[in-house]
């Protein structure tokens, strides 16, 4: 059997990267910073967003695109904290959001009236690291119930994130979690990672996080991640 070989040399992620560039172009056109929140399931992404929407709701107009494998539970929770449309993306089994889904979700978001966009990714510390969504930066959230060596176990996600939120700090008195070790492991992977320490449940540390978000909307933060 004669065969013919066709040289290709094409990056598999090229299509996603092209769509991510279009997301980035639209966001830049309207001056909207976008944070891609990534974490393992149960780290407190949605609770942190609820707290953020409550705290900054009268100062910023925030839009949210939230992804889940199944259910719109997170979107419903967040919708109760904001008058803005919360775009739910149900991935139907896929373990990450991709740029096509975000671009599609943005069709319904009035970017001209938006100060800040959150993209709440599917809870997973592996796959979302591979997909550029057109965000300004990735924010990796991990909680004190997860073990301080998480950055070493999932280095790619911590490498690709510009910021890290260590959440559920209200539980520190009850857990053998070493905060200094966690920070050290994370900085071993990514020396430039900027940290926030929060309890989204009690609100402790959320002010510093919100100050950072206000800086974002004033264009004071460099693109990272």
């Amino acid at each position, binding site marked *: 059997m004669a*065969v013919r*070989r*066709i*040289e*290709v*040399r094409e990056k*598999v992620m090229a*299509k996603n990267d092209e769509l991510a560039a279009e997301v980035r172009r639209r966001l830049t056109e309207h001056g909207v910073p976008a944070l891609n929140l990534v974490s393992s399931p149960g780290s407190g992404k949605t609770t942190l967003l609820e707290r953020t929407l409550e705290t900054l709701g009268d100062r910023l107009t925030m839009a949210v695109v939230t992804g889940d494998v199944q259910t719109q539970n997170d979107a419903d929770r967040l919708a109760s904290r904001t008058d803005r449309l919360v775009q739910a993306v149900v991935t139907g089994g896929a373990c990450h959001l991709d740029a096509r889904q975000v671009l599609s979700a943005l069709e319904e978001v009035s970017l001209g009236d938006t100060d800040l966009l959150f993209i709440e990714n599917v809870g997973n510390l*592996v*796959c979302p690291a591979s997909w550029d969504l057109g965000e300004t930066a990735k924010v990796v959230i991990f909680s004190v119930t997860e073990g301080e060596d998480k950055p070493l176990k999932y280095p790619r996600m911590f490498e690709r994130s510009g910021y890290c939120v260590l959440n559920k700090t209200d539980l520190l008195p009850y857990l053998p979690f070493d905060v200094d070790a966690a920070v050290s492991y994370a900085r071993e992977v990514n020396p430039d990672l900027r940290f926030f320490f929060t309890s989204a449940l009690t609100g402790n540390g959320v002010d510093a996080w919100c100050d950072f978000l206000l800086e974002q909307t004033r264009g004071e933060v460099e693109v990272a991640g």
Partner: protein
Amino acid sequence: MHELSIALDVCRIAEEHVGARALPRVTAIGLDVGDRAGIEIDNLQFCLEALLASPPFGSGVPDITRLSGDELSVTYVEVEDNGGP
């Protein structure tokens, strides 16, 4: 976990290069996959074997070259030559 998405993109790239009508004649698809590409190579191999053995493909196989780094590329598509263009 996301290897099936990657495998579907590989098939899309193959179709772009050989055309939909040639897909049943695809015999192999070459890929370079880096060890830091975030890919479980055995899983990707499994997904591609399943896809390339099912319509619109016929009996193609993946040919994965493992590299260091974060490369993730389709390098070639091989098709049974029927003498056409």
